[in-house]
């Protein structure tokens, strides 16, 4: 390869990684639009969670079939990317399989890449069948209508193309390596347990043609990887990166513990303090933004909830475990996450367009994306949180939005208002006198 090819390759890398970096920065900026929440405590337990759940896939295998197939694709993805390093060096310096100096180890590496690539192909095909032929309920769901369903399939097609190119590239390489005389720099290197069965397709072709094909596969493979990398940001597939921070920053408390709003605590304490002077002038902070109770838009959520939204890969395990969804209600925890992400992206585009400031657009997460009907259908049972393979909490978003409906808009269903009035008046959700609380003792 000439120097021109090397320069072209370097440019390709710069564009590929550069554009990706720009989008990652955007992603971080959007996540930081969320409210602050402290998740810097307990780092040892957080690392452990990340190791077990993201790296170790411990929650994936709860559903054994998809869990096992996913582990193949995941291991394949991680391991085969070691090969990327060699591809980059070869591309920049016109070397051929630069790691071949490792000898036996190199054979083992390339051999295992090939076997993994083949297994990934098989797994991806089964994934495709589950989505498009057997149509599992959680994939057939209307949550995924339109772009999300196509997105999921594009990812699968990408994987098929990349794995096929990888194997074809190796097969052509092997064909050139096996020529009676050494052709160019195609010296013997690596073992090819899978692609050796593909070499017959090159029989009868001229050496030059096979060489051209090998180069084509090689280039398409690396270009494909760069396109895939840059497609991530625009797809549901960011989980391959974000699963790690997401499991690290996830809530460590018992699932039943919902946060106590500090802003409310302050007010309630003031109300209950007999020494507080209700007419005393409050210290005035000119810049203070009036606090809002609960969330009606993405900026009211905390940054971990926004990270959750970008991490969600729309697998739908949450929705399939949701009692409300199973009984035909509109609520789908997956849709809560997708809506949050879509709205956050919309806000992000608004900021891009308006030179770094968000210009109010009369749209909000509540109503425009998520309806009150969905929010009121939740039983807060935590099944969605339990199911999520990467510790996303749709429930915390649902609760924050209910808080807005009740505390800012007084928009609770009538029967719940009655329940709350009872609690206020007589300390029980039903209309019974507080003074009758111990009557049960003497009733027969």
């Amino acid at each position: 390869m000439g120097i021109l090819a090397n320069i072209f390759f370097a440019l390709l890398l710069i564009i590929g990684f550069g554009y990706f970096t720009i989008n990652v920065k955007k992603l971080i900026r959007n996540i930081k639009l969320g409210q602050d929440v402290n998740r810097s405590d307990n780092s040892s337990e957080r690392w452990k969670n990340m190791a077990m759940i993201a790296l170790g896939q411990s929650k994936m295998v709860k559903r054994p079939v998809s869990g096992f197939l996913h582990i193949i694709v995941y291991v394949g993805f991680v391991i085969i990317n070691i090969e990327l390093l060699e591809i980059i060096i070869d591309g920049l310096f016109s070397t051929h399989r630069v790691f071949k100096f490792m000898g036996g180890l190199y054979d083992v590496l390339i051999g295992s890449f090939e076997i993994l690539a083949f297994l990934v192909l098989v797994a991806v095909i089964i994934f495709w069948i589950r989505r498009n032929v057997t149509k599992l309920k959680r994939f057939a769901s209307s949550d995924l209508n339109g772009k999300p369903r196509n997105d999921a399939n594009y990812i699968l097609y990408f994987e098929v193309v990349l794995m096929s190119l990888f194997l074809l590239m190796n097969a052509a390489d092997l064909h050139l390596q096996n020529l009676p005389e050494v052709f160019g720099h195609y010296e013997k290197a690596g073992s090819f347990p899978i692609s050796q069965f593909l070499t017959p397709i090159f029989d009868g072709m001229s050496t030059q043609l096979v060489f051209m094909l090998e180069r084509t596969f090689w280039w398409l493979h690396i270009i494909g990887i760069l396109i895939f990398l840059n497609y991530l940001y625009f797809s549901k597939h960011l989980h391959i990166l974000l699963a790690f921070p997401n499991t690290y920053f996830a809530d460590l408390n018992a699932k039943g513990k919902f946060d106590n709003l500090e802003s409310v605590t302050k007010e309630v304490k003031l109300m209950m303090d007999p020494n507080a002077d209700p007419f005393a002038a409050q210290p005035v902070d000119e810049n203070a933004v009036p606090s809002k109770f609960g969330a009606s838009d993405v900026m009211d959520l905390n940054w971990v909830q926004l990270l959750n939204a970008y991490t969600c890969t729309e697998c739908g395990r949450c929705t399939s475990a949701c009692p409300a969804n199973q009984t035909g209600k509109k609520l789908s925890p997956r849709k809560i996450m997708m809506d949050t992400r879509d709205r956050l992206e919309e806000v992000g585009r608004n900021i891009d367009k308006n030179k770094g400031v968000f210009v109010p657009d009369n749209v909000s997460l509540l109503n425009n994306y998520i309806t009150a009907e969905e929010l009121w259908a939740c039983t807060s049972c935590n099944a969605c949180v339990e199911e999520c393979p990467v510790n996303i909490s749709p429930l915390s978003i649902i609760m924050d939005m209910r808080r807005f409906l009740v505390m800012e808009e007084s928009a609770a269903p009538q029967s719940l208002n009655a329940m709350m009035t009872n609690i206020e008046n007589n300390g029980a959700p039903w209309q019974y006198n507080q003074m009758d609380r111990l009557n049960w003792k003497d009733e027969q």
Partner: protein
Amino acid sequence: MSEVLNVPTMAEMLAQGKQPEVLFWVGCAGSFDDRAKRITKAFVRILNRANVEFAVLGTEESCTGDPAKRAGNEFLFQMQAMMNIEVLNAYEAKKIVTACPHCFNTLKNEYPELGGKYEVIHHTEFLKSLLDSGRLTIEGGQFKGKRITFHDPCYLGRANNIYEAPRDLIQKLDAELVEMKRSKANGLCCGAGGAQMFKDAEKGNKEINIERTEDALETKPDIIAAGCPFCNTMMTDGVKNKEKEAEVKVLDIAELIANAQDL
């Protein structure tokens, strides 16, 4: 039979200069709901039998605020919490037992930050500790060999990871514990949580308690055991809906233990 339940209040205890071993938090359902009151009484009978020195707050108890918080009314929740905490702290409560997983979860997890720090235990855990320490003995008696399935309350199970205490108790009755296809961490909600108990369900094609009752009935149980007054109501309604109330009883774990003792 006119029964005499010994139910001292914290106020009476204080007047005698005594601090009970444990405060029994009865909860709104346990105090007012006719079905749940039977659970409360069954639990008291066991406490009396085991000579546990306990006390209730009586008229000084008020809703923990759980349904208000889950409905989104954080103000009302925190007001209830602070009032209850003032009362509990005034009595210097250390250990609280309750038969309601919602009260249990709120007292245990959400009160500490607001100044209410207690050791909070669910009645199934407490009953197990009574058995383990030998203060209470049970023989299977009428439940020997009966098929009993346990419905995990969300706020006991997933919310607080307590799965074994109620099951251990069922097995101590020499009963046959049969698991539903969805149990423990995978258990399906009864439909009452998150303040749903107090409102109609949104439009759908089925009620959640029916879906769950079907899970339970699939195990061909003699008894559906519950550990929560709200689950109990939902499952009882579900069994009635399926017209199975003659064959299948819905009972709280405390009732099982009390009945086994003929209390």
